[in-house]
C-alpha cells in the first residue's frame, strides 16, 4: 500500500461535478430508479472532462452517488474504455480480432505505430499527440479495418491511408 494521502504531490483534485457537469448528472437521476445506475454515465462525464479517470475522481464519483471508492474502482477497471491514467491527446483504437485480422488489420496496426511515433501499443508518442491501443471487435467487420480516434469512427482503413488520416489530428 502506498503511503499516499488524499492529495497528491501534483495539484489537488478539483471537483468534476460542479456547474454544468453537475447539472447534467442530476438531469440523469430521474431516468433511473437508483443513483448507482448513473455510475457509467458519471464516469463518462469525468473522462470527457479530464481525459482520464483518476483515483480522486473515482472517490468524488463515489461520494456524489453514495457508493464506496473501492466499488467505483472495481467498476472502472472492468470496462476497457475508461482510462485510469493519462493518454495522448488523441486516443486511437484499432481492432485486430479475427474478421479484421483476415483483412490486414495487423498491417494497419503497424502503420499506426510507425506513423504516430508511438512505437509500441499503449505508449504515448513523444509529442504527446497519440496513444495507440489494440482493441477487440469494434462491430464494423464488413468495413475492415475500422479504427477510432477519440470519438471518431473511421472505417475501411488501409496502411496507405493512415498517414493522411493522422494529419487531421494535431
Amino acid at each position, binding site marked *: 500500500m502506498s503511503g499516499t494521502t*488524499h492529495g497528491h504531490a501534483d495539484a489537488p483534485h478539483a471537483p468534476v461535478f460542479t456547474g454544468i457537469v453537475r447539472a447534467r448528472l442530476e438531469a440523469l437521476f430521474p431516468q433511473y430508479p437508483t443513483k448507482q445506475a448513473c455510475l457509467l454515465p458519471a464516469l463518462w462525464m469525468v473522462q470527457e472532462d479530464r481525459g482520464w479517470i483518476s483515483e480522486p475522481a473515482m472517490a468524488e464519483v463515489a461520494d456524489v452517488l453514495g457508493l*464506496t471508492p*473501492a466499488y467505483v*474502482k472495481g467498476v472502472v477497471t472492468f470496462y476497457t474504455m475508461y482510462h485510469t491514467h493519462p493518454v495522448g491527446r488523441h486516443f486511437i483504437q484499432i481492432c485486430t480480432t479475427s474478421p479484421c485480422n483476415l483483412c490486414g488489420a495487423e498491417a494497419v496496426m503497424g502503420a499506426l505505430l510507425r506513423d504516430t511515433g508511438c512505437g509500441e501499443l499503449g505508449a504515448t508518442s513523444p509529442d504527446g499527440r497519440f496513444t495507440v491501443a489494440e482493441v477487440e471487435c469494434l462491430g464494423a467487420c464488413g468495413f475492415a479495418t475500422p479504427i477510432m480516434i477519440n470519438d471518431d469512427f473511421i472505417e475501411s482503413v488501409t496502411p496507405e491511408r493512415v498517414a493522411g488520416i493522422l494529419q487531421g489530428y494535431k
Partner: protein
Amino acid sequence: MTERVTVTIDGAQVSVPKGTSIIEAAKQAGVLIPHYCYHPSLPSPAVCRMCLVEVEKAPKLMPACVTTVTDGQVVHVNSAPAKLAREGVLEFLLANHPLDCPICDQAGECELQDYTFQEGRAAGRHDDYPKRYNPVEDFGPDVLYVPNRCILCTRCVRFMDAVAEDGVLNVSERGDRATIGIFPDRELDHPWAGNVVDLCPVGSLISKDFLHKARAWDLDRTASVCPGCTQGCNISIDTRDNTVVRLRPRANLEVNRHFMCDEGRMHYRWMNRGDRLEAPLVLEGDEHHAVDWDTALRRLGQMVRGGAGTAVVLASGRASLESLGWLSRLLGRYQLTAAVQVPMGDEAPLAGVPGLALRAERAPNLQGARVLGYDAPWASALSAAGTASLVVLLDVSLTETEAAGLAGAGNVVVLGTVESGAWTRAGLVVPVTTMAEEHGTWMNRDGRVQRYQQAKAPPGMAQPAWWVAAGAMATVDPSADTPTSAAQAFAALGAHWPELAGLSYQDLGFSGRVAASAMAEAVR
C-alpha cells in the same frame, strides 16, 4: 409447519424444508459437497463452480449452492461427471496458483490442498507456462493480500459489502488479470475485518499476527468462548507447545454465526504471560511464605469459619460461574457485597448480523455474575471493602489508591493470576487458573450459558478458583458435598440459583443453552 421435500443425495434420502439448497440438504445427508465461494453466512454467487453436481433429469450439472431441492430429486455428488467437473475446476485453479505450500501459512488447513489431494489430478498439465505474478499487498492493519494465491472466490468482498457493510474491497480488472483490490489510502480497519482471513479458503488473505508463527498441523485446537465482552462469541483457542498462538471464531448460529471481532481476536497474549503466581503464599509477619495447598486451604477455612459481619468480593469479569458460585457459598455466613470489574470500551456492531456486536462491557460473564448475586456497583463495593471483615480479590488488579483503601479491612485474601497491587496486605495469596487453563462456563448477555474448555496447562500449582473455595469449605465441614470436577461444580450451582437449575455440561454441549429464566435486563 414449513413444507418439506424429500431428496436423495448419493443414495441417502433426507427430508428438508422447502427452499433448502442442495448443498445444505447434502449436509443433512452426511455428504460434504466441495465448494469455495459458498458460505452459509454470505450471499451466494455460484462463481467457483466447484459445487456442480449431477441432478437426474437436469440437462447440465447444477451448482448445488444456489439450486433448491425439489421433491423426489435425485442428486449424485460423487458420480463420474461431477467428479470430473471438480477435477477440472481444481486444475484450472492450480494453473496460476504458485507452489507456495512450503512457505504458505494456510498449508495444513487449506481447502485447495485438501480437495486437490482428495480429487485433483495427480500431475498438473500447465507445464512451464509462466504463472501470473502480482506483488503482495498490505491491506492493513493485520491483513496481507497475496494475489498470486487468490482463487477469486470473492468471499472477502462479499463479507465486507454485505456483512460488515464497509465496502472497502472490490474485484479489479477482468479475466485472468482480476485480483481483489482495496482503494488506496483505505485499510481493512473495520472492527470485524479480520474475519476475511478465516473466510479465505487459501493462503491469499493472511494475518500478519500469525505470519509464519506455527504450522497448522502442530496446533491443538480447543473449543472455547471469547473472554473479550458480554457477546460470548464461540472461539477456538489454538495452541502450540502450551502457548496460545491464535484465536479463531467457531461457528454458533445463535450467537456469532461464523465471526468474531478483531479486538477479541487479537487479545490473547495475556494468556501466555509468564509472570504468574505459582504457589500459595501465607503472610507471616511482614513476609509471604510459600506453603502447600493443604495449609493454604486450611488457613482460608479458618479465616472464613472465624469470621462474621461483612465480606466483600471483588471479582474479575472473566471469573467463571463455577468460581463465582462456590466463592459465594464459601462466604455464606457473611453479609456479602459482591461486585465484578467491568472494563468499558466502544461498541462495534457487525451490521449484517443483527444482535452481534463487540459490546461495551468487556466482561464475558457479567450477566452470569449478576445472576449469582455479584450485582453491587464496583465503586461502592470498593468503598465497603475498606471496613469489611473479609475482602476477597478474585483475579483483579487494583490501583495503588484502591489497594490503599483496603487498609481498614479485616482479612484480605487474594485468589490471583498475576500481581494484584494488594499483596502486601493480603493474609493469604493463592494462584488460580485463567480461563485458558481451566474448564468453566459463562453466561452471555442473552442469558446463554456456554462452556469453555481447558486449552493449556496451568503454571505451577495454580488451580481453578472454584476448587479453592470448595477445598476451603471441605476443611470447615468435611461432610459437605464438594465437587472434584468442573462439571460437578457446575451441576451443583442449580440447587442454589434457580436460573441454572437442571443444567449440566452435557446439556450445554459446544453451543451452549439459554438458561430458562435468565433473560438479560440491565446488561443491555
